[in-house]
């Protein structure tokens, strides 16, 4: 048994518009191409017949087209517990906790921002493991109390130990990717088993506009191992991309197609998760605005339209906000992003618990996002209109002035049809006053504390846990410079 998400069927782009975007991307990749600071990446393209000019790779259209054919249309990211595995295909939607490490965490006791450490990564992972509507786990903290050379290794150690859900996380560079794959292979029982049943997807971010970085060499390692590559270019409107939403998403589409081509050249059939993002820069603060409507259009609506045009699974945003607290702004922005992502059919909807445009992780917000995700799943599931749901005979039977409360039809359908809030308060004003007039952020904080107190994730076997620690220690010995 694996999880099969509901399908979001809204498309912002017509097929003609998607084709225009595709043809434009082919033209840009062939004429202007990608810059690469990595010789290894240049070599892959050179061997395949791309035109190399210095550090520029001009990618012929046929290479891109062939890559799009070779990339698998269905990807499963497995949970350490198989019942948590998620099927990524078509427009099935899943929300997930967090993203890449955040520089601050909003302390759940004090509400103050502070620098997070490995313990925070562990706690956030444990929280995500307990939240029923978050189906994959990234992070809303960072292990900044360990040497920076091994930060990602420690973060993966925290992730692997504290959740049995699918993990999506970053491992910049070739060396880090190899070490993380070794950790994952220890858990599943070998590299070939990991290729068959990957328990993680790895996030790879190109540098906008149109650049491969040295850390992107991890794409080569991951493609060889057939571990899902989760792409994520972040061009911003009016700065690293044209100011128009479509033009910005076009840059993301180009980088994304270039990365997919790289992966397929290395290993045909390597699983890739599409992300042709166009993000938004706030023209006043110059920050990437995660709560901007253009952000939702570029990273979710257009992205998903293009992914569906190509038939590839995709990755987008849904739990993020520019607000600094779990407040009304945060709720509105998260619901906007989440609903657009859900309706558009983004397979992996990430960033639940991200505040301040990804600078602050908040466990209260993650808990609120869990509720929003539940509401979005319900809307995406939609309504069925058939004899059973129209219930004409039931209406005849009950008649004017009667009630449907105790009817068999009501009892048969109430639990599937009606979404019951997991966190949000629908009680009366009288009850609310009696219970201490608690704002939802207060209720969310209480819930965080309760979960952290009570929830124990499925532990790794003792020997596996020890082997992971050994890999971490070895990395520290080999990578940490003496200071």
């Amino acid at each position, binding site marked *: 048994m694996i999880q099969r998400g509901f399908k979001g069927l809204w498309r912002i782009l017509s097929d003609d518009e998607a084709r225009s975007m595709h043809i434009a991307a082919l033209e840009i990749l062939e004429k202007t191409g990608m810059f690469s600071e990595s010789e290894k990446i240049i070599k892959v393209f050179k061997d395949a017949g791309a035109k190399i000019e210095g550090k520029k790779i001009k990618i012929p259209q046929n290479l891109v087209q062939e890559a799009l054919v070779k990339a698998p249309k269905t990807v499963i990211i497995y949970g350490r517990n198989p019942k948590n595995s998620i099927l990524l295909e078509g427009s099935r939607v899943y929300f997930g906790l967090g993203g890449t490490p955040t520089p601050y965490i909003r302390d759940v006791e004090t509400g103050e921002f502070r620098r997070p450490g490995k313990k925070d990564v562990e706690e956030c992972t444990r929280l995500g493991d307990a939240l029923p509507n978050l189906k994959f786990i990234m992070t809303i903290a960072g292990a900044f109390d360990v040497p920076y050379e091994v930060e990602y290794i420690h973060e993966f150690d925290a992730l692997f130990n504290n959740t049995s859900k699918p993990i999506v996380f970053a491992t910049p560079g070739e060396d880090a990717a190899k070490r993380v794959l070794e950790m994952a292979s220890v858990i599943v029982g070998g590299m070939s088993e990991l290729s068959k049943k990957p328990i993680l997807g790895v996030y790879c971010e190109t540098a906008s506009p149109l650049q491969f970085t040295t850390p992107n060499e991890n794409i080569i390692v991951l493609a060889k191992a057939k571990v899902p590559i989760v792409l994520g270019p972040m061009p911003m409107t009016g700065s690293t991309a044209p100011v128009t939403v479509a033009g910005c998403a076009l840059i993301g589409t180009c980088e994304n197609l270039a990365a997919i081509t790289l992966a397929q050249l290395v290993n045909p059939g390597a699983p890739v998760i599409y992300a042709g993002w166009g993000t938004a820069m706030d023209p006043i603060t110059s920050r990437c605005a995660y709560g901007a409507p253009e952000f939702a259009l570029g990273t979710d609506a257009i992205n998903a339209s293009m992914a569906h045009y190509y038939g590839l699974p995709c990755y987008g945003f849904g739990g993020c906000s520019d607000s600094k607290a779990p407040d009304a702004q945060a709720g509105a922005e998260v619901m906007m992003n989440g609903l657009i992502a859900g309706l558009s059919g983004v397979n992996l909807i990430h960033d639940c618990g991200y505040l301040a445009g990804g600078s602050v992780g908040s466990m209260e917000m993650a808990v609120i996002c869990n509720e929003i995700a539940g509401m979005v799943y319900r809307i995406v599931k939609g309504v069925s209109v058939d004899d059973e749901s129209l219930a004409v005979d039931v209406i005849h039977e009950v008649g004017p002035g009667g009630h449907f*409360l*105790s009817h068999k039809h009501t*009892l048969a359908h109430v639990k599937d049809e009606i979404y*019951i809030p997991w966190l949000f308060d629908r009680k009366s004003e009288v009850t609310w006053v009696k219970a201490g007039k608690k704002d939802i952020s207060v209720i969310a904080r209480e819930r965080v504390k309760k979960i952290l107190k009570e929830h124990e994730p499925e532990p790794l076997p003792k020997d596996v846990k020890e082997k992971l620690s050994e890999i971490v220690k070895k990395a520290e010995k080999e990578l940490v410079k003496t200071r």
Partner: protein
Amino acid sequence: MFMSEGIFDEISEAIQSFEEEKVLNAVKKALSLGVDPSEIIEKGIAKGLRVVGDKYERGELFLMHLVAAAEPAQKAVKELLEPEIKKKAGERKSLGKVVIGTVQGDIHDIGKNIVASMLFAAGFDVIDLGKDVPAEEFAKKAKELNANIVGASALLSTTLPVQKEIVEALKAMGIRDKVKVIFGGAPCTPEWVEEIGGDGYAENAIEAIKVAKRLIGVKD
């Protein structure tokens, strides 16, 4: 004795299945075994309803389930058990008499009906005056039947003021100090009930039972 313990569980489980036929069949079976009707109510039906009520309070079951459990229970008591009790010239043990209705000018009676059947199922003797009931009618019936509680619901802000008239009517009839008065309905609030001189307010049927019991000094 062993036989009857089994049959009480069967009735309680039938109530929890929300299937009227099962409830009626189980009660008939109990009667045919010669089990005392009052015991059937207390040890079978009331127990099943308590389980459903507890699950409702824990959020495991919904309002729909409360009603779906209470309705067959009510039917079984009225149609099968009360006639048997009367045959033996006895009376159903009752926690107290409640005169209940929807106020004049208002035909929204579903909520009132739920409260009525929940009160009945909880062991009260319920006299339901129906909907669109004049204030004087509440007072008249309460006096005539020597009621312990008068309950009135109003769903509209325009019919809410009629609840105040009921208090006045009870005073005019000289029985205000003999009955407790409880009010409910969407526009009704605890402050309003206090303002018009009522005794209790509840926002749902389960709460209504608790308030009714508290007002007449029965332990929950």
